[in-house]
């Protein structure tokens, strides 16, 4: 009230209560002017977003675009002429006379990678579950130490971890040394698919343990005791109570293992010898020796599609699992 109004003791006419201001803009990005105390204006997120766009979405866009381009006659790079040759090459081959026939080779490559990735994921998750369970039942102090122990391999250089198995599986390595002692004689373990999978499992095991542990560490284990008190059988408890709670973590673990394993390069090349063609070294070679950029781009696009699909499925299942776990 203005001073004049107060002196005469009258009240001003009631102002209409304004409707809550919610334009589409402010609903999407929060209030358009007020900055929460202690925070910064939304615009400060732009540099990160821009560089993110530039160096992730940008490259992806380019690679998808390149997959529809043509290959120059000599050397690498692309010629800006639309063509679906690259995608055709995935499934078909042309012989000298121009006849087209179905080419299963590249599908085989996908199959090999898929198989190795699935195997890796299954074993990692199967091993991760008991250890995550075991960790989450320890006292808080010990849990911290265990998390530390699991995290250290996580941060160790991939090449170093792969190299370790090159050492171990080597002809002159400890395992063969032991085998020779036992009289069995040395085996060829390195430069096989077996070595590649071992390497993959070794690499991705922490990726499976940590999310599962994270999901289980919030779990109240008195629920388990309650279930036992009510007479539940051991396996039932495991299945219904514990597994349900761990599900979101299992989903995360599966996604975090499968996606990178599918596109892995280092382990197949170093441990697998590079002789077996997998997705990773296939793509790499297209941009190196083979100099078929569009084809490499097409392969990459397909990989991308598969992994994004996998991530989507995992997040949907994971979301559903978290809701079920909450019940």
């Amino acid at each position: 009230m203005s001073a004049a109004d107060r002196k005469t003791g009258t009240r001003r006419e009631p102002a209409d209560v304004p409707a809550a201001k919610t334009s589409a803009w402010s609903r999407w990005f929060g209030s358009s002017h007020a900055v929460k105390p202690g925070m910064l204006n939304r615009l400060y997120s732009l540099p990160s977003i821009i560089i993110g766009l530039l160096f992730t979405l940008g490259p992806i866009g380019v690679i998808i675009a390149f997959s529809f381009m043509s290959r120059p006659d000599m050397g690498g790079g692309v010629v800006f002429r639309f063509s679906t040759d690259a995608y055709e090459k995935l499934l078909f081959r042309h012989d000298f006379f121009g006849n087209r026939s179905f080419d299963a080779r590249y599908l085989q490559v996908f199959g090999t990678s898929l198989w190795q990735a699935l195997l890796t994921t299954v074993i990692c998750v199967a091993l991760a579950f008991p250890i995550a369970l075991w960790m989450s039942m320890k006292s808080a102090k010990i849990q911290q130490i265990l998390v530390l122990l699991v995290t250290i391999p996580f941060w160790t250089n991939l090449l170093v971890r792969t190299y370790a198995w090159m050492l171990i599986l080597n002809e002159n390595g400890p395992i063969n040394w032991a085998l020779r002692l036992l009289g069995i004689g040395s085996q060829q373990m390195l430069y096989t698919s077996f070595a590649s999978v071992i390497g993959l499992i070794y690499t991705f095991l922490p990726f499976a343990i940590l999310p599962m542990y994270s999901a289980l560490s919030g779990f109240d284990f008195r629920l388990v005791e309650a279930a036992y008190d009510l007479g539940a059988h051991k396996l039932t408890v495991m299945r219904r109570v514990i597994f349900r709670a761990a599900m979101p973590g299992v989903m995360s673990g599966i996604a975090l293992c499968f996606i990178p394993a599918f596109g892995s390069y280092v382990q197949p090349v170093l441990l697998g010898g590079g002789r077996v063609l997998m997705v990773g070294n296939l793509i790499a070679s297209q941009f190196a020796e083979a100099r078929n950029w569009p084809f490499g781009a097409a392969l990459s696009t397909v990989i991308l599609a598969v992994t994004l699909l996998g991530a989507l499925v995992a997040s949907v299942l994971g979301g559903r699992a978290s809701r079920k776990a909450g019940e």
Partner: protein
Amino acid sequence: MTMTVMHDDTDPNKVRYGNAGEFGALVARTQRERGGAQDVSGVRMPADLERKQPDRMWSTRRSGKQGNTLKRFPMVGFVSVAVLAFLYVPMVIVVFFSFNGGKQALLWQGFSLRWYGEVFTNGAIINATETSLLVAVIATVLSTALGVLYVLAVDHMSRAGSALASMLINASMLIPEIVLGVATMAFIRLIGLAPGFVPLVLAHTTFCIPFVVMPIRARLATIDHACFEAAEDLGASGPVTVFRVTLPLLVPGIVSGALMAFVVSMDDFMISNFLTTAGTTTLPIYIFSLIRKGVNPSVNVVASLLLLLAVVVTVTSTLLTNRKSK
């Protein structure tokens, strides 16, 4: 905090019990005193407490009777220890062989530091390390700065807006490295940049940002946002609040994020592989070229040193996040 005496007009819901054990003791004592009295005025106990045994401590530990539970699953402990061993034995073997005195990587010929000496005087390795360090430091500084700005800007976005933003930021984690590597190379070509130092740093910065954002976000969630309101209430304008209150409180998260960014940058192989030229070889790339041909005693040493780096960074980061949780 000591127990308070309950007056008859005290609402039990409002009294604070500092110690769960004391509460149980109080109930026990009260039950014994009141015996079977029909008088129900005064202390009112929650109904489910009546049924509990008076002298069992009300445990707040959620791990339950761990011994009991674990006994029912005996295999779990065994498998877990085996898995942990599986994770560490290979690294131990590498470190072991790094002290090998012999010329071959695997033939043990006595303890010696000769290969450490070798590595520290190897020009190629030193160059590669320097390059890696330079790239990592710059990428760390840039990604940390951008990450901090991002977290503070995004905190008060609506859910849709921040979901969009976080997708953009985390995109690099969803894409297989091989694809990101070749795609970045293609992208660089397209926009006319030659592969070299600058694109390398920029690419590193990009995939480091999500690793910086995570611990800072986590740290921010532990801070009472009323502190920021208090700062403004006391006269601090927006920027002043950020500098005097928000940032100091976020320091453990920022440092943790920076450490992670550093390690991630030092470790990167795939993406760097497609962006380097003869002049900008990073350490992982150099290592790869060495071990491509087989095991190598110098690599034993470099591997052990990188393992040490991982240990130092992880331990420091853990100590930081666990220490200042007040």
